């Protein structure tokens, strides 16, 4: 899978307004969600055999450095049952893309056996950190827009096995950005990143949204390397 992204930041004071604008643009009210993300550091690079298809090739083509991978799940249902953990590996965004962030992404729901690799004592992964993102999600054509706030969990939350630990209480979480600003993420996902017809359409839709929101939300391309998921100094 391939993702095309544009980002922006919304100050607290403008959050409501931007939601209203987006509701107008998308002709629909947002879906409120809340996701919990666990960040794991790869201890050793997986052998190509265990990886699947295209992403494996891309990964092996790159330098064989360990990366950060994520497990995420939806916790918006509150204290009811939690959804299954989804594995998510984001590649370093492709260089040379001026208009959008473009990166291959692997995402799949994990079963119990695979989940074991992430537990403490595993040789593959080491738990690094986690964050929680309450968000409003809009869909406009093929663009998924997420207006979220990144919350860091209280210190020591990950001390226990984070996979089994109860969901951190939202009230105890603090925004990573002390000003409380919101992260605006516009994303188009394409199954086949090599299909130029699809990728062109994805980019043009993103660009159209950027033009439409001009003046209300200034979408931009962040520094590519800020989305670098490779482990430094490994």
């Amino acid at each position: 899978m391939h993702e095309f992204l544009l980002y922006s930041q919304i100050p607290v004071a403008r959050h409501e307004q931007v939601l209203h604008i987006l509701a107008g643009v998308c002709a629909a009210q947002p879906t409120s969600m809340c996701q919990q993300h666990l960040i794991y550091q790869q201890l050793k690079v997986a052998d190509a055999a265990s990886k699947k298809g295209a992403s494996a090739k891309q990964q092996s083509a790159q330098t064989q450095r360990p990366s950060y991978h994520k497990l995420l799940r939806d916790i918006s249902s509150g204290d009811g049952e939690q959804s299954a953990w989804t594995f998510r590996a984001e590649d370093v965004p492709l260089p040379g893309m001026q208009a959008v962030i473009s990166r291959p992404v692997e995402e799949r729901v994990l079963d119990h056996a695979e989940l074991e690799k992430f537990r403490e004592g595993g040789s593959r992964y080491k738990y690094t950190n986690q964050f929680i993102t309450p968000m409003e999600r809009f869909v406009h054509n093929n663009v998924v827009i997420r207006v979220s706030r990144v919350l860091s969990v209280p210190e020591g939350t990950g001390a226990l096995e984070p996979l089994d630990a109860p969901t951190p209480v939202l009230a105890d979480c603090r925004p990573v950005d002390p000003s409380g600003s919101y992260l605006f993420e516009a994303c188009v996902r394409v199954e086949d990143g090599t299909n130029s017809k699809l990728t062109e359409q994805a980019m043009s839709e993103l660009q159209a949204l950027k033009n439409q929101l001009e003046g209300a939300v200034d979408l931009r391309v962040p520094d590519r390397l800020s989305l670098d998921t490779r482990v430094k100094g490994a």
Partner: protein
Amino acid sequence: MALPPEQIRALDQLRQRLSQLSQSLASARADLERSDPVPSWPTLQRDAELLVHNLNRYHETMNEHRAFLTAAHAYPLPTFPGPSQEHVLAQLMRKKLEPKAEDWIAASTKPKTRDAAQLNGLQNGDTSRDVRLDREEYRDLWKWAGATSSGIANGMMINDAFEDNYTLAEREAGVENVVTGLKRNLDDDSDDEDEDGEGDEKMQEAMPSKPAEPGVDASRPPIALETLLRFTSTGTLPPQR
């Protein structure tokens, strides 16, 4: 002396229309005069419709041959039996309308003078009569009406009648009896004065600012987007925390 055939046809057509019209008028009149009791509404209506229809057709025919008819002049031939048909001849040769018809037209089109209007219309209470005002009277009327109505409106403005939650009539009848469907008290005349003073406070009470979220200080500058993304990518918290 022969007229072109289409002109003869035009005259013939006109004659036909007129005879139809006169027939229907005559029959309607006869109906009204003779039948006892008076014919029912539908019958009258039908007669009237027929009349209007015939009038219309006559009108159409007149319009159709307007050019010819306005240019046409009647003049008697030597063979016309003048002495025996003098009446018909006089009617045909007449250029003006009959005095009776002229009076009738004048009465129904000319604007009435004030005296006549008062005598005929107002005093008799006969509203079907045409009570028209001449230009000067209209000017006077509007002069008076404009000033008077704006005076009334000004008075209402000064009394804040437009701002009021109730109409003047409701005020006079007593506000307690007005059914507004609302439970809260609209009538806050009593605290009009202090409202001005406390206005700002009240506003703040009515619209409380969002409760401060823990850990949020909106006055601080936001951290760079890149820093935030770096955290979501690698879990590395920004150094300034």
